[in-house]
């Protein structure tokens, strides 16, 4: 145990003992007992917990508590890997943030109109009973599926059962609507049909083995701050880094080369690179023949892969064994029976996938690519040459840029096709995907708490916009976090929809946008606050991390598990739940998985909340053994199921709104990007005073665009289009591409003159995406606006 024996505990009880008048928001200064009054209990203790999972940083924190207050957080000591001893400005800002004036202090009940922000404080018993009553009323009237459970927040690791006992539809950001744009096109080629959001096929730690690294619309040195140690090690080891981004980001200024691309044309660049690789024969023929679907035959009449039974159905792992693909090897043969399949072949009836790709590539000449992307053709050629011929190579992509466009799936499909041509995935230091997490791990199987048979989520409509805009039968909405802000474009439509719902419940730590639209608001505790000695367990970086109590719950907030348990109790099903979080953690760690052998709650506590899984010492990798979970076991680049959309191979389409030549540009000439930054995790930390020292909502424009509009720094501007408007300060920045505008994602309306930004974002959904892994991505960045002085 690392705790000091000095008398800390008395001081720590201060918060819970105090109550407030209904509706009265006390500052923490008056809420907590003054520290001087606690002289008899004065002492320091050290406590260990984990911070955010949401950024992928997975920091484990060593926290200092004095007089019941969290006075310091610093990196915990990861046994075996010092570089994991990480923290960033967001973690540090918690020292202020958790005590901040945006904390929800008590359960709230709405008294004004939805959206008016008028609430009264109620007791937890009242709140739980009201929630149970309302949820039951919705489900009695419309059926269980009429409740939509939506999550967008840090408390998620603390909630284990709520989706299952609510029995409604679930909208989990991991599977629908956001962060799925590129993955929709990339993941199927690898056999990830469960949608893995283009998670990278290797880890940033592998980059030290890379020779060429392309960062396409990803600002990793900002959005993955704690992975910078590996990023710079790779750079210093000699990797040549290219950043492709419309704006001069931190990634761009730390790269050897910056490619200032026209927004929304990333797929054009990748298709142009594919053409160059084919034209110059820079492809890896051995990899293509043995590990990809490039030699497979397409039936020209149907546009489908030739098999015993052709199909447009969703692909199934291993189905190639019973319904084999065909190749040309002195005639048509099953791919498994051919020793010398032809990569290039065409007759009247058949053409190989590669030959078809080659034909398609003729349209994507270097001139065409340069014109679409506004990039220097010589640089495109040089970058492609290095990517193909100076391997190991990485193609890193971001969730905050090209992912949030109407046809982002073409970017993903083109990226994985390029990767398949060049054979990058089977080399150490080679890979593709999103790298803002410690991606590839051995992982472990936690033990499972047995749930009643009739628990589980209901079938429902997929996709957040379908649920909002179509008649999807949603009548009640349960939100963990600010999902209404983060998951939905075009806020006016969201408002209309929410107003039609019978019941809205929001659970959050801070009073976010979604809370204002809720009927009941439940205050969750931050990661640092528990009544029990421990909270959740999770795995990250192949370690088990344990959440431990740092301080008592602040104000009247409750830790995640207590909220979940309280709701279950009010709904009459708490008997099926563990009584305490520890009870659940013990079951999770009591697993047959040898990776968890010897790891218990007590051993985790003894090891300051961190233990490495029993897995090999070297970092895990994926696909280096060509173990694709596709029908054929190969990387499959031809998508039969998109035949009706002519996207079996990636084909260029202009974006939905923000593209050159769109007549709408005459009215709304500026593309709007909601970029990710070092300051925030989506909308989290926007309210942290220590972050606000450096940034408050600001629309950034190139000085030329600002000058054209008579704008100077700090002017209040109005950004608008037919969907709506927002107002905030403007900032002139050379780093912004002329013709574009940028604001950091997740800005709260209360820190703007008028908001939120989603008032005017594009909510058109790509119908094709419904056939892919996940529902259509919200095309937040595929948005045109005009800006004027407010």
């Amino acid at each position, binding site marked *: 145990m690392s705790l000091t024996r000095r008398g800390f505990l008395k001081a720590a009880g201060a918060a819970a003992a105090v109550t407030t008048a209904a509706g009265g928001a006390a500052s923490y200064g008056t809420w907590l007992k003054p520290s001087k009054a606690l002289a008899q209990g004065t002492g320091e203790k050290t406590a260990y917990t984990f911070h955010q999972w949401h950024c992928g940083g997975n920091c484990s924190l060593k926290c200092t508590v004095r007089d019941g207050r969290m006075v310091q957080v610093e990196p915990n000591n990861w046994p075996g890997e010092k570089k994991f001893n990480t923290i960033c400005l967001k973690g540090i800002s918690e020292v202020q943030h958790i005590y901040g004036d945006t904390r929800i202090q008590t359960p709230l009940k709405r008294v004004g109109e939805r959206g008016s922000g008028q609430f009264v404080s109620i007791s937890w018993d009242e709140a739980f009973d009201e929630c149970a009553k309302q949820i039951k009323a919705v489900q009695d009237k419309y059926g269980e599926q009429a409740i939509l459970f939506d999550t967008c927040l840090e408390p998620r690791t603390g909630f284990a059962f709520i989706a299952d006992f609510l029995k409604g539809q679930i909208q989990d950001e991991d599977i629908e609507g956001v962060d799925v744009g590129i993955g929709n096109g990339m993941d199927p080629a690898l056999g990830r049909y469960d949608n893995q959001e283009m998670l990278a096929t290797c880890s940033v730690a592998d980059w030290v083995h890379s020779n060429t690294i392309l960062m396409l619309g990803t600002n990793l040195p900002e959005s993955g701050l704690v992975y910078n140690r590996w990023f710079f090690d790779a750079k210093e080891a000699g990797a040549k880094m290219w950043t492709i981004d419309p704006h001069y980001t931190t990634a761009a*200024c730390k790269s050897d080369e910056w490619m200032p691309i026209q927004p929304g044309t990333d797929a054009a660049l990748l298709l142009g690179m594919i053409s160059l690789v084919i034209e110059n024969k820079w492809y890896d023929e051995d990899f293509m023949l043995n590990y990809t679907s490039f030699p497979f035959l397409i039936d020209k009449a149907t546009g489908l892969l030739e098999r015993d039974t052709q199909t447009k159905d969703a692909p199934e792992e291993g189905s190639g064994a019973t319904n084999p693909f065909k190749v040309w090897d002195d005639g048509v043969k099953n791919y498994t029976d051919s020793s010398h399949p032809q990569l290039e072949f065409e007759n009247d009836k058949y053409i190989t996938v590669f030959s078809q790709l080659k034909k398609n590539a003729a349209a994507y000449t270097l001139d065409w690519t340069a014109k679409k992307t506004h990039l220097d053709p010589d640089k495109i050629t040089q970058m492609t040459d290095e990517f193909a011929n100076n391997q190991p190579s990485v193609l890193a992509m971001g969730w905050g840029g090209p992912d949030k466009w109407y046809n982002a799936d073409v970017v993903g499909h083109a990226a994985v096709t390029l990767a398949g041509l060049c054979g990058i995935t089977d080399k150490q230091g080679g890979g593709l995907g999103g790298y803002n997490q410690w991606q590839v791990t051995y992982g472990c199987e936690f033990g499972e708490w047995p749930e009643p048979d009739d628990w589980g989520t209901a079938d429902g409509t997929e996709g957040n916009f379908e649920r909002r805009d179509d008649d999807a039968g949603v009548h009640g909405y349960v939100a963990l976090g600010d999902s209404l802000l983060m998951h939905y474009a075009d806020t006016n439509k969201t408002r209309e929809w929410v107003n039609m719902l019978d019941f809205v419940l929001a659970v959050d730590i801070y009073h976010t946008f979604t809370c204002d639209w809720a009927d009941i608001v439940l205050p969750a505790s931050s990661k640092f606050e528990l009544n029990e000695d421990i909270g959740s367990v999770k795995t990250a970086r192949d370690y088990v991390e344990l959440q431990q109590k740092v301080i008592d719950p602040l104000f009247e907030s409750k830790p995640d598990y207590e909220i979940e348990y309280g709701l279950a109790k009010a709904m009459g099903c708490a008997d099926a739940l563990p009584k305490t979080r520890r009870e659940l953690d013990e079951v999770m760690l009591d697993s047959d998985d040898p990776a968890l052998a010897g790891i218990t709650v007590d051993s985790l506590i003894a090891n300051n909340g961190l233990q490495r899984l029993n897995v090999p010492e070297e970092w895990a990798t994926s696909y280096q053994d060509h173990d694709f979970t596709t029908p054929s076991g190969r990387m499959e680049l031809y998508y039969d199921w998109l035949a009706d959309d002519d996207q079996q191979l990636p084909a260029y389409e202009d974006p939905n709104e923000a593209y050159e030549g769109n007549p709408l540009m005459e009215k709304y000439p500026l593309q709007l990007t909601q970029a990710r930054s070092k300051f925030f995790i989506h909308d989290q930390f926007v309210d942290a005073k220590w972050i606000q020292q450096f940034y408050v909502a600001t629309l950034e424009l190139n000085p030329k665009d600002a000058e054209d509009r008579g704008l100077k720094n700090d002017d209040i501007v109005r950004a608008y289009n037919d969907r709506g408007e927002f107002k905030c300060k403007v900032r002139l920045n050379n780093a912004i591409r002329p013709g574009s505008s940028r604001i950091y994602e997740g800005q709260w309306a209360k820190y703007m003159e008028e908001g939120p930004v989603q008032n005017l974002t594009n909510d058109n959904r790509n119908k094709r995406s419904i056939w892919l892994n996940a529902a259509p991505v919200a095309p937040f960045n595929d948005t045109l606006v005009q800006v004027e002085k407010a």
Partner: protein
Amino acid sequence: MTKLGMVIDLSRCVGCHTCANACKMSNNVPMGMLWNRVLTDGDEVLDGAQGTYPNLTRTYVPLACQHCENPACQKVCPTGATYKDDKGRVEIDYDKCIGCRFCMAACPYNARVFNWSEPDHDPDFQTGFKDVPIRPRGVMEKCSLCKERCDADPENEPMCVVCCPSSARIYGDLDDPDSEISKIVKQSNAYTLLEGKGTRPQVYYHD
């Protein structure tokens, strides 16, 4: 002798301000003040760029007290409140500071911050290392190289060094030729800021 200092690798600095907040936390620095700031070179505001799109450059420069060997601030201090300590750091004896601000004017690095009014702390309790002295209104303050933390345990390093996500900062004894900092200063063509001022900073930078 000991001569504590720091070397900062600007090629690794991403301007994230983690060092600024780590310092703020550890030293209980009031709102509206920072001992340690990250500037965007040549730009009045943060995260700008030099040049005209797309021919741009950007360099982040973390800036705090340079712990000069020949400190301009110390020379002008009328009370001896600013002093060089036995480990080569420039420190302030807050009890002796009369708030004349001569040092603030003298420091060519603009590294010092002054408590013009009652310090505004948010949160309103003391954060950070317990032995860091409280500074009242009318007193000058600045980076101490986390004096109290580092003196309490020789294993401790300043909080900005501990927390830097890029491992851009190395702290140590410049008088010890075998220390990591001495080696890096030697090998990396490290330089100091405003060398012409003759202040001989103990904070080095390299690209």
